[in-house]
């Protein structure tokens, strides 16, 4: 089998698409998207980006829902490892490439790092306009009025947007972008990030990017607060952290417990505690 599974022609095409995506922050670039031995919808977009850019010097981390040990993360990591033999890690600080589904790590990423997002629905306009041709036209005209109307309607009915994750963001003052289904909590980490952020949607055959230090802000009305998930008064039952995104877990007695969603963050808090 070839290094990193994909043939060189496919890698070349993906790299070219990535370069275009980085050159136009937030703009959606089409690519051919090869089928992989992993099912469509299970991270094949992120996987193709990772496979197209990875080399022997890289250290790879894969997380799913914040966790390195989650079934799909394990599966993807094992697959990449088997076709590249790169070093893998669970330590966010050590990784050069982090492939993720639905979370951004808690600790701040650094310049030498690349965060690769797995994306189910690449175009944020899908919420208001499912036709791909019309979506393209709306982006070209920077016409996001339908998103604003949606935001207005939600706010008037429910006091806030109904969008709970994959909250629309404006990238570099130009393109409205779908940040993948990360919580609103993570939306704030997208802007001015030191790391390169790449987004891949395999089934929908799209790639887009946020270069380092790019202005990214959530779409919101000037006079409204951007509210993120709130864990006030709660702390991780394992490491005691009060400043991370928490998972709510019911035990066998029906009692609720909270744990850090980012398992590496939780582990490193405990290590610091040990020292």
């Amino acid at each position: 089998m070839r290094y990193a599974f994909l043939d060189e022609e496919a890698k070349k095409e993906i790299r070219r698409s990535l370069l275009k995506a980085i050159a136009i922050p937030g703009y959606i670039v089409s690519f051919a998207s090869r089928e992989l031995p992993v099912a469509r919808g299970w991270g094949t977009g992120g996987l193709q980006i990772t496979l197209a850019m990875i080399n022997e010097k890289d250290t790879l981390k894969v997380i799913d829902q914040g966790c390195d040990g989650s079934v799909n993360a394990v599966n993807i990591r094992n697959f990449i490892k088997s076709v590249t033999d790169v070093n893998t890690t669970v330590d966010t600080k050590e990784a050069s490439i982090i492939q993720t589904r639905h979370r951004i790590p808690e600790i701040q990423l650094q310049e030498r790092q690349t965060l690769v997002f797995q994306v189910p629905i690449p175009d944020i306009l899908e919420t208001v306009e499912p036709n791909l041709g019309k979506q393209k036209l709306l982006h070209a005209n920077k016409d996001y009025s339908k998103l604003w109307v949606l935001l207005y309607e939600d706010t008037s009915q429910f006091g806030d947007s109904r969008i709970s994750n994959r909250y629309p963001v404006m990238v570099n003052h130009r393109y409205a972008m779908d940040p993948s289904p990360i919580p609103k909590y993570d939306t704030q980490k997208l802007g001015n990030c030191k790391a390169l952020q790449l987004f891949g949607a395999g089934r929908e055959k799209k790639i887009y990017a946020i270069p380092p230090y790019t202005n990214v802000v959530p779409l919101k009305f000037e006079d409204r607060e951007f509210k993120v998930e709130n864990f006030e008064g709660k702390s991780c039952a394992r490491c005691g952290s009060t400043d991370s995104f928490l998972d709510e877990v019911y035990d066998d007695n029906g009692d609720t417990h909270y744990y850090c969603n980012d398992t590496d963050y939780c582990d490193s808090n405990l290590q610091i505690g040990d020292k």
Partner: protein
Amino acid sequence: MAYYAIKGGEEAIKNSLDFYGDITSKGENLDDEALIEALTFSIDKVISEGSLYSKKLAARAIKRSAGDMLNASFFLRAHRSSCQRIGISRTIDVNDMRLTRRISSAFKDIEGGQLLGPSNDYEIKLLMDLKDEDVNIEEYSNEDNVIKSALTPLRDDNLIKTLKKEESPWDITRNYPSAPYPRSAVLQVMSRGESGSLLTVGYTTMRGYGDVHPTIGDLRIGELDINFTHPFTKNEVKIGSIEATAVESVGTFNQDSEGDTKLTTGFGFCFGKNETKAISMSIIDLTLYNNTYSVGGDHIIAADFEMIMHHLDGIESFGMTNHFKLPHYVTFQTDYQIFRSAQKYSEEQKEEQRKEQK
């Protein structure tokens, strides 16, 4: 209390695959050749949807999937990605097909005659065996049985609407087009689409969501040679042959780009013996390009390029549908928090209204 954690993923997957292996290993002893011969229609469905013409690999994929056909097609697609492209074969013409079956419902008699060939169309679906009656089987060979489409006389008389020819066909496996979609790309999507999906969309046109009233002008199953230009000698060489199904359906008349009134047709083509799929494809093709008389308002799925281009692929729809089994607890947590705050907001609104009414 034990640290919860879905962190046992590694072991869980291993065990799950082990249990699954117990199921699939039962098929290991089945002979590939026997499977190809005995379950020929299953094999053909898989090579068509997997868009890789290898009956041998299809047999292996069906065994590895314990008969789960979508999964088997997925195996072929994944394998296809790892194959290096050597080049592009010469264009094939379905008129050159060595026929094993060819019918036309548009004419009572046609050049070469109605050739029913192997078909279950007139089989009585009873699971018990009926008394056998002797039949005289005609001697038959497909070698000299090359007959042009039954629509050829109409085409020769310039009665059939033709669409503008593309300079070179699109290749959706190398570059997926944006709207407006070239017809070659649309046909490729359908040719490797999921049979059931094509059937559903095709069927909508027969119930008023579209107004094409198709007649099967020519349905053919047979062998086609694949020719390739030799990279060194530059001679054209035959590198193999494939079994395929092709359908031309005829619709209502319509005006072409010159304003001339012509008969409309749709084309369906796929690997293997897949009549239902090829018929569905030809009807959708007909509907997409001839929807001017269509009833059914804006809901004509079969005439909507966006619907056709993005919803017929079995590998994609199957993957996405199954991805909902992946852990989603982060997104569900965000949904839940938004739900609680919206609930709180509407309760407060209600409370205020109540106060105002007093």
